[in-house]
């Protein structure tokens, strides 16, 4: 799951601007109205702030960038998967409730969660009756099948995830646009015995298939209205709102879908009458407008800009309108066993022991940026255990003595030299690299820092095994956010050695442990949830034992909750965003 990278604005200039606006005082807190809930810091974390069923108003969103695509088959941004609930219904979704309940899946288009059979190789769903597209036509299982089929076509729709491609028994199927069946439903891996039933057949067992059913790819698409790459210009809605206007790259608006029947949809309160989204808006301007009340939501969900963050944390009144959301995201450094002398486990352990973890956290914003990570799995992921093999917490500034001992064990008593890569456009990664240079330098490990452009970082440089090896990238700055908050969603892309591609584009840069691969396979087949969750903890520990990753920060963001909003809460399932589909206007 991707988040829109926060573009580093000119902090000083913006700080001065915001300093000026602060001089004039604030008119945003609105606590003089008797019936409205009083804002508090973190009022939307773990609970609903200002619960409401009041309908009406226009919800105004702004995006500092642009969608990868509004087409459900072609999108990977976390905020997109949140917003899409306004105009699309997938088979299942995360329960729209705050706290740990939000981590659980609940049926949306389907009547119940999936029913596994054949050892979790087959999954069956029954669709609710009475659900219609925006034009009044009934939604059937064939529309869901067609939607999944088109999401398989990575040539036409390159951006979305590939879980269906990887797990369905495709038998050579590529795309409905090359499908020879007259109804374009030639994929044998999905069966639609009747209009209400859909059956998925997998190549291998997978106990977590409900998470795939949550993906936007299962949002139904009417084949007769499918215009391929142009479909995103007007996506046919199955949700409570439909597109009214769509100016690509500029803005779009949604209005109520009169063919959405609330009786079929227990998950969406559909409070606002209209939704407006502006694209490519200046990030600092967004913050100013949020605070002045001109705007309701910053859709990117990556938190306020650096200057605004300082202002909010320092001002008690403003802070009441802020929430810190824990993301299922880890900032870490990959430790490359392909580059000598890091091929020796003791040299790798020396790196982990010598790191100043407090300084690592400060590079990412200190307490407001998150918590020191002692292993890979963020604590809110079911199955995460407290693992701290190298005493990160008790030795926050590093353990130079233990590190030196490990260096002696790997035959480098005086330290060694290696290169560290990071993404040039990210000031936090640069700060981290410099911090590591310092703390590792204390035990004799000399780092040469190598910045790379972020657009190609994973495709051509750090993410390309040969490049990393030939250029002696011993340490590589990295970060990962789960596609969904469970062990598979978090771990699979970053610890499975079999996903590593020689052609580049990898996020797993350094974890190649057979035990881990075996444990992953075991988890995939374990349908008993608590037993499966235990395996994630085992995998986390095994990876840490090998010291091929240096965990840094379990990330948090600071979000500003506009006083215009009611019914606000943070969804853990969606990954630390406000549940957009539940928001209303005061």
């Amino acid at each position, binding site marked *: 799951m991707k988040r829109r990278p926060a573009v580093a604005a000119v902090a000083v*200039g913006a700080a001065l601007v915001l300093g000026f606006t602060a001089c004039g005082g604030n008119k945003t807190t609105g606590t003089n109205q008797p019936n409205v809930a009083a804002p508090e810091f973190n009022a939307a974390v773990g609970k609903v702030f200002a619960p409401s069923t009041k309908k009406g108003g226009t919800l105004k969103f702004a995006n500092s960038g642009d969608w990868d695509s509004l087409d459900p088959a072609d999108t990977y941004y976390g905020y997109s998967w949140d917003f899409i609930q306004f105009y699309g219904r997938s088979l299942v979704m995360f329960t729209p409730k705050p706290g740990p309940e939000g981590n659980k899946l609940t049926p949306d288009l389907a009547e119940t969660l999936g029913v596994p059979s054949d050892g979790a190789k087959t999954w069956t769903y029954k669709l609710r009756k009475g659900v219609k597209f925006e034009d009044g036509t009934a939604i059937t299982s064939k529309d869901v099948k067609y939607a999944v089929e088109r999401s398989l076509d990575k040539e036409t729709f390159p951006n979305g995830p590939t879980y269906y491609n990887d797990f369905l028994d495709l038998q050579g199927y590529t795309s409905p646009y090359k499908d020879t069946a007259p109804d374009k439903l030639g994929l044998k891996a999905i069966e639609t015995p009747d209009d209400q039933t859909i059956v998925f057949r997998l190549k291998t067992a997978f106990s977590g298939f409900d998470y795939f059913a949550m993906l936007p790819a299962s949002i139904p698409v009417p084949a007769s209205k499918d215009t391929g790459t142009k479909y995103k210009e007007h996506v046919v809605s199955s949700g409570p709102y439909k597109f009214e206007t769509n100016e690509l790259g500029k803005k779009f608006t949604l209005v109520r879908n009169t063919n959405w029947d609330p009786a079929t949809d227990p998950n969406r309160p559909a409070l606002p009458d209209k939704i407006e989204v502006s694209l490519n808006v*200046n990030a600092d301007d967004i913050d100013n407008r949020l605070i002045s009340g001109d705007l309701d939501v910053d859709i990117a969900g990556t938190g306020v800009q650096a200057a605004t963050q300082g202002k909010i944390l320092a001002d008690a009144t403003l802070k009441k309108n802020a929430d810190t959301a824990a993301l299922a995201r880890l900032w870490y450094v990959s430790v490359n066993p392909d580059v000598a002398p890091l091929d020796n486990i003791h040299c790798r352990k020396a790196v982990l022991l010598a790191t100043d973890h407090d300084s690592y956290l400060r590079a990412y914003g200190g307490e407001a940026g998150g918590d020191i990570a002692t292993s890979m799995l963020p604590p809110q992921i079911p199955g995460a255990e407290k693992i701290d093999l190298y005493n990160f917490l008790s030795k926050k500034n590093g353990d130079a003595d233990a590190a030196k001992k490990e260096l002696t064990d790997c035959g480098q008593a005086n330290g060694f030299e290696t290169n560290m890569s990071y993404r040039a456009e990210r000031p936090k990664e640069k700060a981290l690299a410099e911090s590591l240079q310092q703390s590792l330098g204390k035990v004799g490990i000399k780092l040469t820092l190598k910045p790379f452009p972020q657009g*190609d970082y994973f*495709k051509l440089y750090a993410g390309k095994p040969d490049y990393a090896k030939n250029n002696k990238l011993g340490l590589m700055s990295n970060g990962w956010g789960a596609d969904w908050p469970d062990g598979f969603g978090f771990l699979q892309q970053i610890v499975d050695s079999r996903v590593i591609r020689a052609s580049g584009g990898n996020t797993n840069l350094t974890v190649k442990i057979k035990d881990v691969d075996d444990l992953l396979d075991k988890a995939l087949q374990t349908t008993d949830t608590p037993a499966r969750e235990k395996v994630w903890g085992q995998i986390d520990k095994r990876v840490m034992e090998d010291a091929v990753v240096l965990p840094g920060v379990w990330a948090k963001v600071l979000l500003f909750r506009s006083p215009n909003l009611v019914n606000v809460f943070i969804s853990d399932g969606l990954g630390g965003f406000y549940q957009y589909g539940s928001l209303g206007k005061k």
Partner: protein
Amino acid sequence: MAGGATRRPPRPNIVLRYVIRRLLAAVLLLFVVSVVTFGIFFYIPRLAGASAEDLASRYVGKTANEAQLRVMADKLGFYDPLYVQYGRFVKGIVLGANYNTGPTTVRCPAPCFGYSFITQNPVWPDLVDRMRVTGSLAVGAAIIWVLFGVSTGVLSALRKGSIFDRMAMGTALAGVSLPIFWTGLLTLSIFSYRMHLTAPGGSYTPITENPAEWAYDLILPWITLAFLIAAAYARLTRAGMLETMGEDYIRTARAKGLPERTVVVKHGLRAALTPITTIFGLDLGLLLGGAVLTESTFSLPGMGKYAIDAIVNNDLPKVLGVTMVGATFIIFANLIVDLLYAVIDPRVRLS
């Protein structure tokens, strides 16, 4: 042929030949720009060791495998020799091209300045749309900065050393020194969000839809941008005026009894206008190529913002399109400036 005075050819002919020569040079220059730009995006990465698949990796999602990269590289023509790729690009501009949408193909009519595989849209209609915004921003601001800049410069020159002069030049210094991303955010904060006098960032209404709304949306960016640029004009005008007003022919004009306004404007200012015209041509040309900082600060959907967004997203066809259009504007702006010299300053020979 006997010696003696050669009859001078009629003036319009000279002008026409000059214009034609300059137009041909402009077209040649555009051709060079297109080759160089194309080379930068599609040849230099190859020199640095990038393969066709590496180039294609920009157009695929993060989960693409090797097979998908090869398919995309083939689809985008990266396996063809460079001159074939360039030829295809030029052919698109002249004749148009067809692109696959999945179930059908879509036509990109001439001039087809490329097709963005990230937004799945031809680039040219976007550029036309964005040009209107950048054009509105540039022209509106230009009128304000020329009027204010030049008149301030004239008044300062005439009242040299006075308090007005000092304050005006001080303000001009501020305008030149303060960055637009700061003044822009500040003016938005104060005038739009606090006082609700002007439109919020990101507001733009086409003039054809509602001229009053169009002006209301742009007044703040116009003034903020003009403030930045007027400074140079004020200072230049003042310097030029001071030099000119000391000339003999000014004293002659006054001695002849001409009204002061005629002396100042028709004789003094006119001579000082030549350098002003030069930088005006450059400034306007550059702005029309995309007022990047202003558009980013005010979130205006113009060419500059388009270019920045395209660069951030690695959308090469868009960047190529913007570069070509920007270069065209600069080249033609300079051509017009050169022609204006002849109008303003009769001493310039069009030889």
